[in-house]
Every structure is written in structure tokens, then in C-alpha cells.
């Protein structure tokens, strides 16, 4: 089996990671501050997308409420901040624990359902969290809340854009590393086997429900991490972080990048942001003023991708070995 890095896909991925690793240096050199902020958001959303890929891509669980975990992560940090608990050492673990606990609870209910019911119930639970947060008048309600960033005294200052970016990038790498280990671990094989044929896995003796629940909780935890970073990025939390549209965007990203491909979520996030950035000016070139309505093109594009390009970008980069 050839070394995975020597394939076209491998080369592109390595180059991409290198580019991301040195982005703050590049943006400083070319004085492109906006680009760094876009890059930060791409990295953060990639973490969220990787977490969804764990359960959707590898596990076959179409969760339509994943953005809720981002929201929980962000709100936990935001609420603690607003109440005066600004230490990141305290906030971040609490946020992740809350998200994992919630994921376990709703997972225990949702994973008893199948197919369409599962999609709907995850969506509904996300809406529940969404409405709860927009009802929290004390924390901004619908308008959201400005918060101070988490403090890590002596270690890192999150207001420093470059430092924050590198923190996010490091966490993305850690998430990708964990995911790569997960996929080929005993746990990962059970999850993937269950995606392939759940009944068969039960007939082999695996209590599939338990494994899926664990995966659901783990994915929720990583998504909360992304939410924490998102809240710190803009120093702002709002229910919009967890609207069902965001959950839908995450699914788009994962499918776009390539389901069940390790770096798929990264490709997908970049592609998604790229479309948002470049499709409008492209349309404006064709006809002035059309750019504003870029989703009239994007929408059908998603339909086409769903019908004809299921493998996503990852499949365009060449065949994968098992």
C-alpha cells in the first residue's frame, strides 16, 4: 500500500495544512487582516464539521441538530463570562461537560428512533435549545450578547488575533488526529459496521445503541469546542449560532467535502466559504446586481451535488483505499 501522502489527495492536503499553519504570517506580510479572520472562522467551522463527520460520515447518523452543540458550548462560556467567571480553565471544561451531558440525554432518546424520525427528532431538540436561548432575556435573548473573551492568564491572550488563530488551528489538528485514531480503532469499526449493516452488528453481539450513544456524546463535545471558539472569536453569542440553518450548513459542508473522509470536512468548509465569497462577484460579472441573489444558484447547486456528486470533493481527488 503506497504511503498515503504520496497521492494527489495527500499532497493537496499537506499543502493545505501547511498553508493554514502559516496563515497569520502570510496575512501579516500582505496586510490582509480580513483574510485572517476568514481563516479563523474556516478553522473553527472545520472543527464543527469534523465532529459531525464522526457521526454522520462514519456512523451514518444524519443529525440535523448539530449546531445546537456549538450553541451550548458558546452559551456556556458566554453565560459564565457574563456572570463574572472569566477563567478559560474553568469555562471550557464546564462548557464541554454540559454539551456532552446534553448530547447523552438527547442521544438516549433520539437513537431509539430510525431514519426519518431520527433526523426530525435531532432537529426538534436543536430547536428546543434554540428557543430556550432566545428566551433568555438576561443573556440577550434574540439579540445575542457581547461577552468578554476567556482568560488564560500568563498563557495566551485570546484578543491577539494571530495567537487565537494558532490556538484554533492547533485544536483543529488535535481534533483531526483524534478522528483519525477513532476511525481505525475498535470503536470506530463498530460504528462503521453499524452504518453498513446495523442488524448484522447486533447479530454479532454488539449493543449498537451504546456505541452510537457514545459517538453522539463525543461528537457533541467536539462541536461544543467549536462553539467555545466561535464565541471567543467574535466575543459574541446569539441564538443564530444554533439555528437549524446552521445545522443544515454543517450537513452541506460534510457532504460537500466527502462523507466519511478524514479531511473531507476541511475541504467542505473551505469550499462552502469559498462559494459564499466568490459566487456573488462571479454572478455580478455575468450581470450587474445578480450577485446579491447568489443563493438562487447555490440552492440548485446543492440539489445537483445531492443527486450527482455524493462523494463530494474527496471523491474528486482520486480513489481511496479502505
Amino acid at each position: 500500500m503506497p504511503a498515503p501522502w504520496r497521492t494527489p489527495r495527500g499532497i493537496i492536503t499537506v499543502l493545505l495544512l501547511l498553508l493554514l499553519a502559516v496563515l497569520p504570517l502570510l496575512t501579516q506580510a500582505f496586510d490582509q487582516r480580513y483574510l485572517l479572520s476568514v481563516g479563523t472562522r474556516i478553522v473553527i467551522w472545520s472543527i464543527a464539521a469534523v465532529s459531525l463527520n464522526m457521526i454522520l460520515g462514519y456512523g451514518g447518523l444524519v443529525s440535523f441538530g448539530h449546531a445546537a452543540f456549538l450553541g451550548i458550548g458558546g452559551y456556556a462560556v458566554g453565560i459564565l463570562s457574563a456572570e463574572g467567571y472569566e477563567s478559560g480553565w474553568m469555562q471550557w471544561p464546564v462548557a464541554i461537560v454540559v454539551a456532552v451531558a446534553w448530547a447523552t440525554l438527547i442521544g438516549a432518546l433520539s437513537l431509539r428512533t430510525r431514519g426519518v424520525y431520527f433526523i426530525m427528532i435531532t432537529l426538534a431538540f436543536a430547536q428546543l435549545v434554540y428557543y430556550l436561548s432566545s428566551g433568555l432575556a438576561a443573556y440577550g435573548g434574540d439579540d445575542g450578547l457581547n461577552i468578554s473573551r476567556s482568560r488564560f492568564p500568563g498563557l495566551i491572550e485570546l484578543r491577539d488575533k494571530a495567537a487565537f488563530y494558532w490556538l484554533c488551528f492547533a485544536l483543529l489538528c488535535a481534533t483531526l488526529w483524534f478522528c483519525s485514531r477513532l476511525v481505525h480503532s475498535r470503536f470506530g469499526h463498530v460504528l462503521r459496521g453499524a452504518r453498513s449493516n446495523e442488524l448484522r452488528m447486533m447479530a454479532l453481539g454488539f449493543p449498537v445503541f451504546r456505541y452510537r450513544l457514545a459517538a453522539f456524546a463525543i461528537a457533541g463535545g467536539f462541536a461544543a469546542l467549536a462553539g467555545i471558539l466561535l464565541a471567543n472569536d467574535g466575543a459574541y453569542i446569539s441564538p443564530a449560532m444554533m439555528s437549524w440553518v446552521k445545522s443544515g450548513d454543517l450537513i452541506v459542508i460534510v457532504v460537500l467535502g466527502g462523507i466519511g473522509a478524514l479531511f473531507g470536512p476541511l475541504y467542505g468548509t473551505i469550499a462552502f466559504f469559498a462559494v459564499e465569497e466568490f459566487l456573488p462577484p462571479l454572478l455580478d460579472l455575468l450581470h450587474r446586481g445578480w450577485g446579491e441573489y447568489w443563493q438562487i444558484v447555490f440552492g440548485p447547486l446543492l440539489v445537483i451535488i445531492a443527486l450527482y456528486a455524493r462523494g463530494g470533493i474527496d471523491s474528486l481527488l482520486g480513489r481511496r483505499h479502505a
Partner: protein
Amino acid sequence: MDYLLIQVLNGVQLGLLMFLLAAGLTLTFGIMDLVNLAHGSLYMMGAYFAWTLIGWTDSFVLGTLLALPACFLLGVIVEVTVARRLYARDHLEQVLATFGLILFFNELVRAVWGPDGKSIAVPAFLNRTVNILPGVPYPAYRFALIAVGLVVAVVLAWLVARTRLGMLIRAGASNRRMIAALGVNIELLFSLVFGLGAVFAGLAGLMAAPIASVKIGMGDDILIVAFVIIVIGGIGSIKGAFVAAMVVGQIDIVGRAFLPDFLKTFMGAASASAAAPAISQVLIYLVMAAVLVWRPTGLFGQRS
């Protein structure tokens, strides 16, 4: 007491509206196994079509009557171009494609009708009150909604229970392959069902418009409640959709009406008013969760 009665009626009215929306959804789900997120867009288009047609004809009744076939046509077009290709696909692809349709329709509406919300006025002949009980006035328009909703529900029940089309629908909901094997023109049936669902959705949208307003994305949040309703009722079951819609309507309205007072007993007034709508929404999802724990395929759903 009168206040309670009015709220209950409002709950019935909302429930019937939700039933219209949910009925089409549960049919496409049950028969075509299609997760159609764009059903809310059909709701929205009904309202926009009505707004335009009422503007052209200067008549509420004529405008709404013309909007219905327009919705049917739209439904059939969507079915033939997109939905049809999704039946054989797995749910993820259906979610992705119909999500794309939502974006498309929202932007289309923005391009054609502009970003500002529109309003449809309650027609003059319904812009009054009726006394449902002596001394208890109730808006005539809402009363008309209840009447129309009930009529549609009865017609739909008759259609499903007593006509050939209904029989095919019921058979299809439990076994799609079998009705194909019976030599029925499946493609036509599916187009019909989809179109019918679009009419119901559009009808709900245009009926809701004078009360709720016409704006971009108006169908998207309601759609989720419609999904909750069909999950509670059981996918493919019209009866289930009706029962669940009634329950949800009551919870939503009565909850909104009485929760603030209940919450004020242990919360500040401002927090109570802000929290109440959120909590009544939350209640709906809790009911869904409870139903699914008890019956994972809904109250009247098919048990596999």
C-alpha cells in the same frame, strides 16, 4: 372563562392550520418516503401567490381561489424536476437537496417580491366579530379559518377513506412496492400526491397571512413544528397528523396565554414574558420526546 374559550378556539384554529401543513408532509413522507424540507417553501409561495393574485383581482376570495391551482402547479413542477429523482435516494441526499430548494425559494422570493414583508388584509366581509357564545365575540376571520380547516379535514378524511385515490394512498403508505406491482401509474400518483400536498401547504400559508404576515422564510420555522406534528402523529397517518396538530395547537396557544401568569409567580414580569413563548415551544418538543419514548413510530405510525 371566556378568555379560556377564546384561547382554546385560537388553539383549534392554529391546530387546523398546522394540520393542513402537516397533512401534505405526512403524505409525501408516508408514500414516497421523501424528507421534504422545502414543504415550508410551498407554504410561503401560497401566501405570496395569494398576495399577488389578490392585488391583481382586487378580491380576496378570487385571489385565494386562483392561488390554489397555482400552488398545485408549482408542486407538480417541483415534483417532476427535483422530488422525483430523490425517491430512490437515501435521506441524507433528500435533506441536502431539499435544503438547497429552501435557499432557492427564499432567494427567489426576495428577488421577485423584494426583501420587505407583505401584508394581506383581512377581507372586509370577514373583518368583524361573531358571538360564539352570548356576549363572547370572536374574530370572524379566525372563525372562517376554523370552518375551512374543518371542511378540508373532512374532505381529506373522506378522500382517504372512500375513494380509489385514497385507497392507493393508504396502500402506498404501508407498502409502496405493492401498489407499483398492482399496475398503478406510480409516477402520476406521486405527482398528484405531491401537488395535493402543495395545495394544502399553500392554503395554510395564505390563510395564515392576514394573521401572521407574509415574509421570506415564513415557512421554515413552522415547517419544523409540522415535522414534530407528523412525528408525534406517526408518519403516513392523516389521522395522526390531525390529532397531533390539535394537541400542538392547544399547547402552543394556551401555553402562550397562561404561562406568563404562571411563570410570574416565581419569576420577574419581564423575564416571564420573554420566557413564556420559548417555554411553550419547548413544551411541544418535550411532548414529542415523550411520545417517541413511548412509541418510537408515533401515535398512529406504522410499526416496522
